[in-house]
């Protein structure tokens, strides 16, 4: 079945991102298709490559990047939410006159329409948040 996922909280602060990851991984392992994972609200912080968690802890950001690579996942970060919270890719950094970008591998920044499209295209949409 084709599933869509929305993640509404950042890494570490809430379990939402961990739950979404564990769910997504289990769904993929069962042979389901993940149409898209959409990161909204503070969930956009799952996409920063600048996190440095302690070595004995999970690396939430890298874990998403690796899953994306393994399964060719579409990880989409909401542009409006990302801009508010300082999450930028190279294009956005340039466009807004910022001196750095911080998006991690495997994520892309796009509009809220991508969430609606996930709702339309996926057979089920599951929201993980606080």
């Amino acid at each position: 079945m084709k599933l869509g996922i929305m993640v509404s909280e950042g890494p570490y602060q809430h379990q939402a991102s961990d739950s979404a990851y564990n769910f997504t991984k289990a769904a993929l392992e069962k042979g389901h298709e993940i149409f898209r994972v959409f990161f909204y609200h503070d969930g956009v912080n799952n996409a920063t490559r600048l996190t440095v968690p302690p070595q004995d802890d999970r690396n939430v950001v890298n874990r998403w990047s690796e899953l994306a690579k393994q399964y060719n996942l579409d990880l989409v970060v909401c542009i409006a939410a990302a801009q508010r919270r300082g999450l930028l890719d190279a294009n956005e950094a340039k466009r807004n006159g910022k001196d750095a970008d911080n998006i991690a591998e495997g994520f892309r920044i796009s509009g809220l329409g991508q969430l609606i499209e996930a709702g339309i295209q996926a057979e089920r949409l599951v929201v993980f948040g606080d």
Partner: protein
Amino acid sequence: MTLHTVNKSPFEANSLETCLRLARSGHNVLLFEDGVYGASKGTRFEALITEAMQKQNCKIHVLLPDFEARGMSTDNIISGIETVDYAGFVDLVTKNERVQSWL
């Protein structure tokens, strides 16, 4: 059929109460994250859960990895509640027509 997910402790938020007020007969409810505390016997929410299962005919599930992570004893789960793992969570999502997250 709807899958309702509840991720808040019933002591912290009214998500479980609102969820059960609006769940219909035959619906599935999954308690996960801090929501798992609602699955234990002896809390002041036990009657609410039991009533939802018996009178409303709701099926209640608890995500075992979240329950165990919190040191909660499976011997103490309210009878009638089923435990699921993440694969079981996925099955609940696919077998219901929609998922309503009570954040």
